[in-house]
């Protein structure tokens, strides 16, 4: 039905590549934010970032200040989200805890993306036995469920926030590497790579200057899709007492302490866990929006 389709768009054709790219980006963004659920996800993540930055201003109490006269207070005017077993204000601890959540997501993402890119691009560009070995390695990591492998790494490295970040990174890179490899394989066979090669560029230069930049957008998107899983794994480690150590107000660890007071004071576990759910949901909503916008079949 070709003649029935009228391509709508701004009148004049783009004059430069940059202009065309800007236009494509604008179209992408407008489609992306047209879904209410995606916007909701963006808002929640926005609030999370805002909270993390302005935590000292938003908190009503110090996250560590104990008040043994007022332990296990239910949510109310004095303590919006109640108080914990040491009388600490849960609301303030949640506010400060947002920093740890963001820190983990950020650190894991910036660790995983380069590892995945490196392994994937080298594997895809080099081919042959390098490819076989690297992809076999990736498969082995992929053949473990995320949490179990992270647990094993923490067992070897010791508990703690830094080690938890490291352990999660070590388990989260394989899907990125697979994606980068697949992208590299398509890029490698393209004409402009052949042209650069004819000009005498070294393989290293080709990978770094030409292959990696082309893989980057899809890698960034894949990392974004992964953020909810990162949050949940980190919270799981925290809950098992293998992540951030008390008295750090990390949400998973807070939920774990709350377990001991579950029946009498549900809010100790309920509220931090709810916060994890909310943030992980937000990242999933964003991921969903990205997937829908990028999926050519959707339109």
């Amino acid at each position: 039905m070709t003649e029935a389709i009228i391509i709508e768009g701004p009148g004049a054709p783009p004059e430069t590549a940059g202009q065309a790219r800007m236009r494509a980006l604008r179209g992408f963004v407008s489609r992306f934010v047209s879904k209410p659920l995606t916007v909701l996800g963006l808002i929640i993540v926005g609030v999370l970032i805002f909270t993390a930055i302005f935590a000292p201003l938003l908190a009503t109490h110090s996250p560590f200040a104990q008040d043994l006269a007022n332990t296990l207070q239910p949510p109310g005017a004095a303590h919006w989200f109640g108080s914990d077993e040491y009388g600490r204000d849960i609301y303030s601890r949640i506010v400060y805890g947002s920093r740890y959540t963001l820190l983990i997501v950020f650190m894991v993402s910036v660790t995983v993306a380069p590892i995945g890119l490196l392994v994937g691009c080298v594997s895809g560009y080099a081919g042959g036995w390098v490819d076989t070995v690297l992809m076999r390695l990736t498969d082995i990591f992929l053949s473990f469920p995320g949490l179990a492998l992270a647990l094993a790494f923490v067992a070897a490295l010791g508990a703690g926030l830094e080690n938890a970040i490291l352990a999660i990174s070590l388990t989260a890179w394989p899907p990125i590497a697979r994606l980068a490899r697949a992208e590299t394989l398509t890029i490698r066979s393209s004409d402009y790579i052949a042209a650069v090669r004819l000009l005498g560029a070294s393989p290293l230069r080709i990978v770094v200057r030409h292959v990696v930049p082309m893989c980057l957008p899809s890698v960034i998107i894949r990392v974004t899709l992964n953020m909810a899983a990162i949050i949940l794994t980190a919270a799981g480690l925290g809950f098992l007492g293998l992540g951030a150590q008390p008295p750090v107000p990390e949400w998973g660890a807070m939920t774990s302490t709350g377990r001991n007071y579950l029946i009498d004071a549900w809010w100790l576990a309920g509220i931090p866990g709810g916060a994890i759910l909310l943030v992980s949901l937000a990242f999933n909503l964003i991921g969903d929006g990205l997937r829908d916008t990028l999926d050519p079949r959707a339109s």
Partner: protein
Amino acid sequence: MTFPSGTETAGRYAAYGRRANNGARLLGSVLATLFGLLVLTFVIGRVLPADPVIAILGDDYDPAAYQRVFLELGLDQPLYVQFGIYIKNILTGDLGNAVITGRPVIQDILRVFPATMELATISLLIAVLVGVPLGVIAAVNRDRLPDHIIRVVTLLGFSAPVFWLGLMGLVVFYAHLGWVAGSGRLSLFYLDLVPYRTGLILLDSLLAGEMDVFWDALNHLVLPASILGYASMAYIARMTRSFMLAQMNQEYILTARIKGCSPNAVIWKHAFKNIRVQLLTIVALTYGGLVDGAVLIETVFAWPGFGQYMVGALTFGDMNAVLGCVLLIGIIFVGLNLLSDALYRVFDPRTK
């Protein structure tokens, strides 16, 4: 629990099937993966820790034991010799002794594993029985109200921390409503009432004809299994939806409608028949994810299974026990991959 995205999994399995198109290659690839698993656990257990002996014995060790383990591991010898010893031990079924129980790790694992298997299997059953119909309903009503509702339900399943759901489930359904039993596999007075046969209490109690025990066990199982199954249910529902959507656009669906098939016949007899094999693959994969989630849910429900054992070992820094568990999970995953590959071959007429 992390799940790979749909296209990735499907692609991976398609590639798996193509790559391993004959038995020898498949065997080679499985052996290579298993070998990789051994290398990985060796690195985690013997290379990463500052002192592997302390990692095995814990902080308060006895010097004589230290010396013995030091020599057993071959730590006075080069790394490849140590690796050789490690492999030899594992191939002979020796995973070392667990400090927390004082028994061989392999025995411990065999003892606790049935509890996890029972939990994971019931979870999977719930996930499939709920997830598949939800996915089909969502696909058939694409972009209409049922689809939106199911989308929210599945997104919550992906996003909720399983340990938190467990805790809140206990608060609501056990403490407040009293609908289900609390922690553990059985109430105290039913413990050790039925003889141990399979280790699966549901089965053992039926075999012994003890219906009271059976109902008690079921009462304990239903909440942790439902919560553990939720995330998998969400995953299965999503995959079912996207598989179904891909089929509903196919030309043979139009053929079926031209023939005069009812909407139900079009969905179940034509479209669904085409995704059964893909779904089997997904379900096999999900089972591995359930073992992963069991680590957390067993901690919450004091479920005496493999996950609780592993967490206990982690807390006490019992490296032999931890490595044994990791190895077991890895082997289960490789096995499930093989199984789904086999299912693909058996059930898809196109691979014959």
